[in-house]
């Protein structure tokens, strides 16, 4: 169901009140015990409502309705929160669309109230060239041509390497002469993973459906505690993650490796089982294929 626009909501303004109900794209989010925030069509700003007002919106025939301030009632209609109930009936077979964008709109509204701006030095060309090739170690990969290209691609660019909030994990599935497994923060330490099959489950779902043959996968995590983080910081973590995922993609391209990026890949549990530490968000993954 496409989000209604505020312009559409003007249509309902003249409807008789006794046919009104919550409009289809509306979301009500609790704000404390007695307060609520209401979001209408599109990413409109949250309107603060009391519990009594929410009850009135939910039950236009109920006792709370008559106490609803007429001015607020008009505002709820004008912003598309209230609309003819039956006309807005939605197909609820998909239970997740019932949630809609409500939590995201609430989050974005919080972000808009915060002022945040950062200046970030772009990585220089030398940073993007990657780490110098080091001698293979017992624990590290012996590099074939493909291994070397994969190695150089996932060797972290300077800004990424220097950012203490970022962690990168490379999972090797099928790179010539490289021992399959999980390599955390570079090639030096291969880790045993308690769930060895995890990658074989992740890769086909996230990438294999498109027929992409995954040879290795770089997973990026950022340290950010959602319980303590501002909305701006949380959003910034994702944007910065996107910046670094793009840099890895660019390096893959420069090394002639096919790649696919997927930020929806479910790797949350890996942060825990790989013992990255507390409070890491999964930002996404870049899958590398054979050249």
């Amino acid at each position, binding site marked *: 169901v496409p*989000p209604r626009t505020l312009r559409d909501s003007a249509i309902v303004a003249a409807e008789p009140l006794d046919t009104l*109900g919550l409009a289809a794209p509306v979301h*009500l989010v609790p704000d404390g015990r007695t307060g609520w925030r209401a979001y209408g069509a*599109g990413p409109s700003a949250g309107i603060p409502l009391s519990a009594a007002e929410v*009850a009135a919106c939910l039950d*236009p025939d109920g006792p709370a309705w008559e106490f609803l301030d007429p001015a607020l009632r008009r505002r709820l209609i004008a912003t598309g929160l209230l609309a003819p109930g039956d006309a807005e009936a939605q197909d*609820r077979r998909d239970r997740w669309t019932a949630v809609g964008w409500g939590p995201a709109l609430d989050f974005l509204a919080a972000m808009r109230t915060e002022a945040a701006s950062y200046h970030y030095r*772009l990585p220089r060309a030398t940073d993007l060239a990657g780490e110098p090739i080091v001698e293979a170690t017992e624990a590290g990969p012996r590099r074939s041509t493909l291994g070397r290209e994969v190695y150089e691609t996932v060797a972290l660019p300077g800004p990424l390497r220097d950012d203490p909030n970022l962690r990168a994990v490379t999972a090797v599935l099928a790179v010539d002469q490289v021992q399959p497994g999980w390599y955390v923060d570079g090639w030096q330490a291969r880790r045993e993973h308690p769930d060895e099959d995890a990658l074989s489950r992740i890769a086909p779902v996230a990438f294999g459906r498109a027929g992409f043959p995954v040879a290795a996968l770089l997973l990026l995590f950022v340290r950010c505690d959602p319980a303590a983080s501002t909305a701006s910081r949380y*959003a*910034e973590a994702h944007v910065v993650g996107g910046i670094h995922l793009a840099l890895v993609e660019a390096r893959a391209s420069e090394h002639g490796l096919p790649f696919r990026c997927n930020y929806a890949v479910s790797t949350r549990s890996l942060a825990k089982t790989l013992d990255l530490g507390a409070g890491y968000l999964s930002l996404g993954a870049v899958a590398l294929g054979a050249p």
Partner: protein
Amino acid sequence: VTSERLRWSDGAIVAPAGGRRAAVSTASTGRLWITSGAALARVVAWVADPGDPPPPLAAKLRDAGILVDDPNGGEPFAPSPTLAYHRWSERDDYADGADELAERRREVLGKFEAPTRRAILNLARSRPAPDPLPSDLIDVVWHATDRARLYRRIVRSDGSAAALLYSYGAAYDLYVLDPGAPTASVLLADLDARGRGAAVDADATDVLRSVGVNSAHRGVAVVGRLEDFQLRYHHAKALRGFLVDGGRMLAEVGRAMQRRFPDAWLSRAPLGAPTCRALRLDPATHVAIGISFVRSSTETG
């Protein structure tokens, strides 16, 4: 449920469910309860003021994890929008998410109505762009959007339902900022016509100042349009992709700027409302992701 205090769980949300019904759900358990608006209204009132015996629905909502025990009953409770959003974004079982056989996603895409499809296609089309971009930024804009252009082309020409989800190119605009330009100092770049843009009624100095950069600089801003993601994805988790993709787009602009101007900088997001307002955009419908900028007097690489 007896007389103890309950509160709404983090990530709880109420939405209409057709007619006089309402759907209440929570991210913590993923449970959804559809009930009459009147019954839910009684629970809302009781949670706020639990003087009376709880309505019968309260016990069911507690069993579903939508209401939770509140040992600090009476204390102010203010769930963080960040935490609530995070809980929703962590769920994997969205209908249009990745599933092994992609059947569920196909089914969801099949429900896209014709107006939605048309709207998505329209968003992937260029608008008239009669004005020339500054000559030394033409390549920056063009090469930074190579991939975006590819995706826009796929959306326009592929015709398949899956292509509707290709949002990378269509959801972001590039604004070229040049305070010293003789005419328009802000141009909305046409990603499909090399070197062309449309003048925007905004002042590049104001836009740069919104991120603490003075008018001795020029740059390219990346701005995302939420509507484009909302049309495609009908759930909150997609905001993560919106932000991550914005970062990818900003990195591509930054790399292209750096190839041309080795001393280019990046102002990273979220830039918040001031930048949108300086661009005469509604911050409720747009998110400024970032600006790549360089001193106007800098030499090209």
